[in-house]
């Protein structure tokens, strides 16, 4: 499905042209919370184009040739890091990745020292992931180049929300009016937060389903419905997004056992019956099969969009890199 076919009335709040004429009037992509529907729609439209390009034999274009992209990951990641690397390379960028875990912190270098060092290397885009909420924003204040947040603490993971939105838009035709369930460890999830902001901005109806210990305080004030039961929560759902149970972030007693979690909050064929017949099942990966999602649901070709999400990930990241370097390349920002 191409963008042109998308019903324009799906974006009632996106109809207004921004006064600046710029569809994406931001230097960085730090989060979804400060993006308006116009900007979100623009990223998705550009990404649609890259989906088509990525399906050709010739996947690369020299659009960003000569530009330097640094991927700086303070938290372990393979999927997101690789997705950003491929995205940069397909646009012709020089891509360097550094996955440090927490090693530079152990060496005593502060984040701002790291920023100064990297800045002196004159990158054109910096992609960063960090275990602390707000860390990417702090670093961006010291960088001359565009900064993309590849996940900070529990705060935001904007490219994940954008790729999820692209997946839904291509499968369902629109975001507006869709009932979208986000289920799992919302408390520790940056994916959940970015998705809540994005889906709300685009007029979707968002419902969270999780045990009480995995929901952050006052989350209902973010404009979502909240349920603790899978049957009640999945009622009438167009899309179910499962979150990874982040066992590494589990401090203290959130859950008694994974076995019990699966019984009450795992997504199985049985629980999925409460959702709409054509429900779309999504997961940001990597999945814990048999913990938050049953294998046969994850592998259901008709309903599962999990592999498609990975494909959309590359396209969305290409779109973000493209949009944020337009000024540098002398292209009109719109």
């Amino acid at each position, binding site marked *: 499905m191409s963008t042109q076919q998308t019903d324009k009335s799906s974006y009632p709040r996106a109809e207004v042209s921004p006064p600046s004429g710029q569809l994406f009037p931001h230097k960085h992509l730090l989060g979804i*919370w400060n993006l308006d529907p116009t900007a979100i729609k623009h990223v998705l439209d550009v990404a649609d184009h890259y989906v088509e390009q990525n399906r050709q034999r010739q996947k690369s274009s020299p659009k960003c040739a000569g530009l330097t992209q640094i991927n700086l990951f303070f938290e372990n990641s393979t999927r997101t890091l690789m997705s950003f690397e491929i995205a940069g390379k397909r646009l012709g960028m020089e891509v360097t990745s550094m996955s440090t875990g927490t090693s530079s912190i152990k060496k005593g270098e502060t984040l701002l020292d790291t920023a100064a060092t990297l800045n002196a290397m004159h990158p054109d885009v910096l992609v960063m992931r960090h275990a*602390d*909420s707000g860390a990417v924003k*702090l670093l961006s204040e010291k960088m001359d180049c565009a900064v993309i947040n590849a996940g*900070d*603490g*529990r705060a935001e993971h904007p490219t994940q929300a954008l790729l999820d939105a692209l997946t839904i838009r291509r499968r369902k035709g629109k975001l507006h009016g869709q009932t979208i369930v986000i289920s799992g460890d919302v408390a520790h999830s940056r994916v959940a*937060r970015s998705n809540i902001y994005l889906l709300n901005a685009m007029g979707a109806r968002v419902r969270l389903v999780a045990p009480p210990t995995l929901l952050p*305080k*006052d989350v209902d004030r973010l404009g979502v419905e909240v349920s603790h039961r899978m049957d009640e929560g999945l009622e009438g759902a167009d899309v179910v997004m499962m979150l990874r149970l982040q066992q590494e972030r589990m401090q203290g007693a959130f859950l008694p056992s994974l076995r019990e979690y699966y019984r009450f909050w795992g997504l199985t064929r049985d629980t999925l019956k409460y959702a709409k017949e054509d429900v779309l099942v999504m997961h940001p990966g990597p999945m814990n099969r048999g913990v938050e999602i049953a294998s046969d649901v994850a592998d259901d070709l008709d309903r599962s969009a999990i592999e498609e999400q990975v494909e959309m990930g590359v396209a969305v990241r290409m779109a973000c890199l493209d949009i944020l370097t337009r000024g540098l390349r002398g292209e009109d920002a719109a």
Partner: protein
Amino acid sequence: MISAFTNARLIDPASGLDTKGTLIVNNGKIADFGPDIEVPDDATVTDCKGRVLCPGLIDMRAHSVDADAALAGGITTVILQPDQTTMIDSDPVVERIRRRAEDTHTVNVYPMGAATRGMEGKELAEIGQMKASGAVAFTDCRKPVSDSQVMRRLMEYASYFGAVIVQFPQDKGLANGGIAHEGEIATRLGFAGIPAMAEVIQIERDARLSEMTGTPIHFALISSREGVEAIRAAKARGVKVTCSTAPHYLHLNDNAMEGYRTFAKVSPPLRSEEDRLALIAGLADGTIDTLVSDHDPKSEDVKRLPFGQAAAGIVGFETLLALALAPVHAGKVDLVTTLKALTATPADLLGVPGGKLEAGAPADLVIFDPDKPWRIDREAFRASARNTPFDTLPVQGQVWQTIVGGKTLFSGE
């Protein structure tokens, strides 16, 4: 040497005196004061031009002496917390701090000692030794004494010496890992939260231990509505509890953290608007006994970090009075009540000199214009660091002179 401060608005919060008049200082002590005082011929006269003259402020909670900043804030007595580079948990350290303060002839300094050895909450510190050397109270500072048995023994033991115990009311379990008030803002920003109930549970447990042991207890830095209610209820039951808060809790709510501003990171955390309003009401009705600055200079090295890693703390000396006066100007708290929480009440609680206008008392005084508007400017701070969320904030009420032992040690505009 005799000095006379004429044409002053004399306020003595302890007695409720608020009158126009003159105050005479002789040999470092208050000699006389009142509306109809004759100025001796040999006196050095200072015309206060209608400004308030009251006892110098006694700041019950500071993490650094920072004398110049204290004097600029109208503070004549600083109560130093035990979390120094060399922890105040033994009598030689107490003595050294007392001696250094006496030798430098500046602001008065009285240390609080650690309540438990190494502030680890396990064994009692040498409370008797430290008290004999001049420690005025005992606290583990930002660490609550969590073990109920240790706390009970601490209170029982302290009562023999008449030592004041100060508890930081935060239940360790509920606060574990938290960096912000548990609520909508923390959820949006992606922070682990500390619920207000962490404060309540600690207050209620220790109020019960106070009933059990008969030992009074002081809670430092109340931050929540529920905390105020818990104190109010304990007081109504006749339990000997007192508490403090700091001006930043009266001024800011958790919205101040927006944009991950680490200047708004304090411990306990800034809470909701509802909490802020309840604290002001608690100050007005006397539930909150004292106002403290919680002065804590922190360098950029420990503040310019991701919010979760950044140090908590605000520099408070130079903004203490002006910020404390804001609820007065807003008509929520009266001037004498506010000044009492900054002078007479902390003096009585800790048994330190000052805090009152009375003949024979040390002439530790502050003269300030309660209405004068100015703008907080962190670049103009005398403090050893400038970590404040209040930069450029317009406020009312400015210190004109700070007098310690009859000597004017700070003089402003």
